[in-house]
């Protein structure tokens, strides 16, 4: 059987998680490849979460939060934007394709956008194939 891409999604509680919820409530279809992890704010994300996700077997990582300027905590996503920009370029330099790590701004009313992002990402990851080289050797990944 062909391996399905695994995407870890870090969704901010106030916008993107609600956006994902809306996608569900509105019965918009999108691939089941994304495992959502709710965080209170994208500013809470240590950029190393992204690295760790890849190491623990993710093929793609999505970080989604409020649009810049709309953060529930005023500036959490602004800080995240800078950190993720650096991390994304660093991982790309180390050989993890930029397309595997996306940062998107999805508000609570953008259920369609959320579904679209997940669909796009899943399609892309299917083309790119699994990211085996970065996986740590442990029983969970074997």
């Amino acid at each position, binding site marked *: 059987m062909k391996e399905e891409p695994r995407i870890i999604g870090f969704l901010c509680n106030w916008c993107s998680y609600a956006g994902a919820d809306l996608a569900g409530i509105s019965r918009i279809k999108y691939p089941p490849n994304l495992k959502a992890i709710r965080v209170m704010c994208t500013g809470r994300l240590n950029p190393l979460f992204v690295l760790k996700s890849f190491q623990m077997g993710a093929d793609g990582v999505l970080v989604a939060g409020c649009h810049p300027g709309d953060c529930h905590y005023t500036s959490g996503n602004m800080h995240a934007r800078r950190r993720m920009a650096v991390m994304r370029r660093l991982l790309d330099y180390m*050989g993890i394709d930029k397309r595997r790590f996306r940062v998107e701004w999805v508000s609570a009313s953008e259920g369609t956008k959320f579904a679209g992002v997940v669909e796009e990402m899943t399609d892309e990851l299917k083309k790119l194939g699994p990211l085996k080289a970065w*996986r740590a*050797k442990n029983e969970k990944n074997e």
Partner: protein
Amino acid sequence: MRKMSEVHEIAKIEIAIKEHASSLLSEGAECIIGYDKDGPCFIEDLKEVDKLVWNNHCIHNLTKYLPDFEGKVGIVVKGCDSLSLVELIKHNQVSRDKVFIIGISCSGILNEKKEKYKKCKNCSHPSPVIYDVLLGEKPVPKEEDHSDVVELESLPHEERFSFWERMFSKCIKCFACRNICPVCFCKECLIDRRESKWSSKFVSTPEILTYHVTRAFHVADMCTACGECERACPMKIPVLKLYKKLRKDVKELFGYEAGLNLEETPPLISFSEDDPEP
């Protein structure tokens, strides 16, 4: 061969260092951090001042030792080291009024083969950016060289990964690169926590890569490319190639260069409305 005038210049600097060291010690400084014939040395006694030397082999970045001292300290600082010192002051590891900086304009340091170190060939800061006294004549700064980073960037992802895989397969996780880094000043390191899920004790490629990416990200807006990590590496891994990439990115994204002045806020603890999208 070095020119006569250069030899003369070097001797003059050495005498000046000794003079400043003695006057500082007699004024009550706790210690003078400088170089003796074997490497870094710590002079606490006036009688030992004569041990201090300055020559073409003083490679060590002495600012690493500064945060360990509480009293007033005098320190010998080259152009490249001064950048790390700025970062240490900026991050409240060293207080400016407790350190007397003997700045030296340096024309490059030689390795065991009597060649200039790679980082010295394209030195962008031969003169210290911060000092109390400045010794030596000012050499002309060169443009910082990112050609090796650009070269690696131009390769496809698989080749980039296999390059790093090949390089880091030599890594024995001795953490020398972390221990010698002047801006790796955390008292307790994430990597050392025994029960931490961040780093495992495995020495396999993904774990090694994780360690290096972690460290690189932690020093992203502080690294001054002083090259000590690369020099300390017993396996001769070109780790500087990784850190230089971050310096390049931070400059491109936020227009910030670490170590240049005490006023600018480090980019990863601040933000602006019109930042580029990731």
